[in-house]
């Protein structure tokens, strides 16, 4: 017995490096596959705060070189909003008359569904197979997990997956696990937006029935089925229609509306009414079990 124990210890000592190697490998792989499944680990909160410091320093310089393009996109966003003002519309008809809305702003608060929060993009990548954005706004400034993120021109960017006190990690559309429910604006046919990891300007729309007519240039918008995005935010435009031979579905190549390599500011959409439907759904699922 003692002999056996001695041999065991000798064996471990002899191959100690190899065992250490195995232990470290298992540790790394555990971290990797665990993070891809659940994005809320304690150590990542600390890591995000630290990398956030470096990223925001770097962004101070980078932002300066992109001021012009950032400005252009904000002007475009303003143009869109100006064109929605009441004074832009006038009817020659005297039957119609403009009435001031009598609902008080205060009482509107409980009807508010979506609240937009501006955030500075400090870290961003488009060349990796899994791309994330890092925003300089976090839990202390009202960001939560699973909120939708759009760019200044209302184009979909991604979903919040991890929040630390002052930083937020966003899984961009350019991520292998990203999957967003979408609709064709023309005919309301729904599908799922995914990314194949190849071109940062192109995402794919899957599960579109062949029964609908799809043409190049059709707009693809958010479906509003999930609580993250309201209906109708632009995702992109159809660039190519691929007919899958083995099924009755189309695969659409979508040119993204957001330019992912140029993002400097984004808006985080907080859905203030998501709790009630979520609870209802949970209750329904419980009764079905």
């Amino acid at each position, binding site marked *: 017995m003692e002999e056996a124990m001695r041999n065991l210890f000798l064996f471990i000592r002899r191959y100690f*490096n190899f065992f250490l190697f195995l232990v470290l490998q298992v540790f790394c792989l555990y971290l990797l596959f665990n*993070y891809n499944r659940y994005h809320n680990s304690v150590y990542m909160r600390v890591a995000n705060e630290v990398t956030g410091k470096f990223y925001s320093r770097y962004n101070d310089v980078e932002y300066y070189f992109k001021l012009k393009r950032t400005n252009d996109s904000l002007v475009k966003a303003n143009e869109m909003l100006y064109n929605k003002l009441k004074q832009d519309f006038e009817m020659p008809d005297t039957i119609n008359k403009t009435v001031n809305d009598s609902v008080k702003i205060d009482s509107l608060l409980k009807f508010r569904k979506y609240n937009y929060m501006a955030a500075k993009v400090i870290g961003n990548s*488009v*060349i990796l*197979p899994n791309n994330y954005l890092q925003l300089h706004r976090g839990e202390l400034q009202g960001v939560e997990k699973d909120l939708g993120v759009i760019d200044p021109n209302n184009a979909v960017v991604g979903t919040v997956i991890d929040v630390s006190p002052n930083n937020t990690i966003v899984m961009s559309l350019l991520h292998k696990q990203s999957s967003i429910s979408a609709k064709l604006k023309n005919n309301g046919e729904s599908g799922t937006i995914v990314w194949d990891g190849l071109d940062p300007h192109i995402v794919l729309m899957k599960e579109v029935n062949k029964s609908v007519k799809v043409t190049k240039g059709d707009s693809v918008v958010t479906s509003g089925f999930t609580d993250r995005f309201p209906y109708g935010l632009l995702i992109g435009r159809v660039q190519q229609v691929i007919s899958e031979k083995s099924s009755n579905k189309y695969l659409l190549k979508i040119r993204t509306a957001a330019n992912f390599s140029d993002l400097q500011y984004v808006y985080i959409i907080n859905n203030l009414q998501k709790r009630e439907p979520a609870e209802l759904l949970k209750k329904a699922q419980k009764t079905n079990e």
Partner: protein
Amino acid sequence: MSNLVKNIIRFILFIFVQVFVLNQIPALHHLVNPYLYYLFILWLPFKTGRRTLMFLALFIGLALDFFTKTPGLHAAACVLIAYIRPFVINVLISHEGAEANYEEPTIKSMGFVPYFTYAAVLTFVHHAFLFLLEALQFGGMWYFLLKTLLSGAISLLLILITELIFVRRQRFRTNTA
């Protein structure tokens, strides 16, 4: 400069170059994803123990991982090359005592061809393992093979340029002195 300070500076510089330069430049092609940070592991002194090597590799891998939000991905590849580094060096050192006479693996201490074989072997092992872990999530055989080959070749080119620009002077140390 002491070895410790030198390596700490290298650690920081390599991470910053990787995160703020190589990961920021627009990709040549989606299969080309150049890496340079693991040169830190290749440049560690000959006398570094295997355990120390592996822990240092873990640290630099995790440091990069926290920037790219892939905890464990680069760390796993780095630990692997740190583990096989001593084997590769033992096979490739041609003249007796290069490890005793020189401090670090360089072109001068190992010779041009052995040094580049060493860099190439570790580069391709690093890239292969990294992209294998990636390909498990998506992609396929061809994606994995092509990406390893192309990215590995570009990374090696970067290493060559780095070696030519930053020549590391090595004192020849003898036992007799």
